[in-house]
């Protein structure tokens, strides 16, 4: 964001005219200059580079058009009727100070031009009061707009902050829960070992392993997301067949489903589907989607399907699980928006999986969509480019 414009600019940048004449120029000649140029408002009188006087149109004409004015002064040097004590200011003076000084002059001089000089008192040009006032009012208008922008920005930041602290409260709880479980289990294992109860020890060890695995998943997710947010996630492109990858993911899904009556199937045409992409990221995307499906499906079917098009390959992960309410579909992929109040949230997990999935799909130049019927099931569809030119992928990585 641009900094707020609080102090005004130097007046040297607003010079309106650099016209000057010698103080010995005849008044009649000066008057001719004013007659010829209707836009000339004032002329500086400069002697050897130094300002010595100021002639303004209204004052000159007033003097000359008085009775006998022209006869009296026409043939005299202009310095005789010029203002020999005009307001002279340094060109690096601030606009607001210059306006103050210009406007604090006597009424009859208030609109007279200001003569600007450099540090060595050499004449640089004339500055009209009109010009200064126009600039000042623009600056004021700008500062009002900028203040409004700053206020809007502050509001946004406050919102982001709120979401962040909500997120931290949430993550804190998610991280501590498995750690506490591990500590508790370790203590219980100590008790079992004192009793030499190997069976109990073995049971507790396996529960502890699953708590530790859960903890690792959460930590990996948080680290991945911060890597993505920092734009540090790299993409390594390879040509590979997507089918074996899909079968491997299905195998993992079968393990996650465990004893629940859920069939896991892969639907694909015969033959390989070669793709240029990052297989590690593609696997991560599919694992995230299928482990969600496995978690929220108690019975029925989990289907992984692939269809290859001309330019894109479509992979869908479909389940017959609890489904997602329509109102929640929009915010599914938006970072942090799915964070419920940590105190009363219903589902375990950080809810970061889908945010990461969406980011990974974007990184690979693809797209992801979801459709769901609450209580009937959910279907995620990922479209990935079959031929990924490196430039495109890198471009996406920067977004």
């Amino acid at each position, binding site marked *: 964001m641009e900094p707020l414009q609080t102090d005004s600019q130097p007046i040297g940048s607003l010079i309106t005219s650099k016209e000057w004449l010698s103080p010995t120029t005849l008044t009649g000649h000066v008057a001719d200059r004013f007659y010829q140029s209707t836009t000339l408002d004032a002329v500086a009188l400069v002697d050897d580079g130094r300002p010595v006087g100021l002639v303004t149109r209204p004052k000159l004409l007033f003097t000359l058009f008085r009775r006998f004015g022209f006869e009296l002064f026409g043939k005299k040097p202009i310095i005789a009727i010029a203002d020999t004590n005009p307001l002279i200011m340094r060109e690096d003076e601030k606009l607001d100070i210059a306006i103050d000084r210009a406007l604090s002059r006597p009424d009859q001089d208030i609109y007279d031009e200001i003569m600007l000089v450099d540090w060595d008192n050499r004449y640089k040009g004339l500055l009209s009061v009109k010009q200064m006032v126009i600039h000042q009012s623009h600056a004021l208008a700008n500062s009002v707009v900028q203040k409004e922008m700053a206020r809007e920005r502050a509001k946004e930041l406050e919102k982001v902050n709120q979401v962040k602290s909500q997120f931290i*409260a949430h993550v*804190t*709880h998610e991280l*501590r*829960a498995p*750690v*506490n*479980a591990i*500590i*508790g*289990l370790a*203590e*219980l294992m100590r*008790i079992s070992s004192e009793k030499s109860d190997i069976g109990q020890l073995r049971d507790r060890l396996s*529960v502890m392993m699953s*708590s530790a695995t859960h903890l690792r998943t959460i930590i990996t997710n948080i680290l991945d997301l911060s890597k993505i947010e920092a734009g540090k996630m790299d993409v390594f492109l390879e040509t590979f067949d997507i089918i074996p990858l899909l079968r491997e993911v299905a195998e993992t899904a079968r393990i996650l489903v465990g004893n629940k009556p859920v069939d896991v199937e892969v639907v694909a045409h015969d033959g390989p589907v070669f793709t240029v992409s990052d297989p590690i990221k593609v696997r991560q995307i599919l694992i995230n989607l299928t482990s969600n499906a496995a978690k929220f499906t108690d019975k029925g079917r989990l289907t992984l399907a692939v269809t290859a098009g001309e330019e894109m390959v479509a992979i869908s992960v479909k389940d017959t699980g609890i489904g997602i309410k329509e109102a929640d579909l929009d915010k599914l992929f938006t970072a942090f928006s799915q964070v419920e*109040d*940590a*105190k*009363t*949230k*219903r589902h375990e997990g950080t809810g970061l999986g889908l945010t990461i999935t969406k980011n990974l799909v974007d990184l690979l130049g693809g797209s992801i969509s979801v459709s769901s019927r609450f209580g009937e099931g959910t279907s995620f569809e990922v479209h990935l480019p079959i031929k990924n030119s490196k430039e495109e992928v890198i471009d996406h990585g920067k977004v």
Partner: protein
Amino acid sequence: MEKFKKKILVVDDDEMLLMATKELLTAEGYDVATHVSGFGVINRITTSRPDIVLLDINMPALSGDNLAKLVLQRCDVPIVFHSSNDEDSLRRAVAECRVKGYICKGDIFDLKRKVATYLL
């Protein structure tokens, strides 16, 4: 002897934690009951009359701090929060809900010590 064991009710949505806490406190010689949701806690308290309730804060739909206020309106039972939240927020919740105190989940020594103190 069994009669004189102090009764503890542990309320939490995390079954793993309930199991661990139950075993740890049973080993300390208490009579420990568990309840796996924020709902039905008042009934459970009026029927089983525990000497102390360890109450989790983060639970689906009904948070422990709100539940504590409801319980204290109806039952005269000491409540202690048992949570993974940070201590600052626990201190605030204790003051706000006028419960006995809090125990940080995962600190087994603190759990044993505080439960013993609150049951004196």
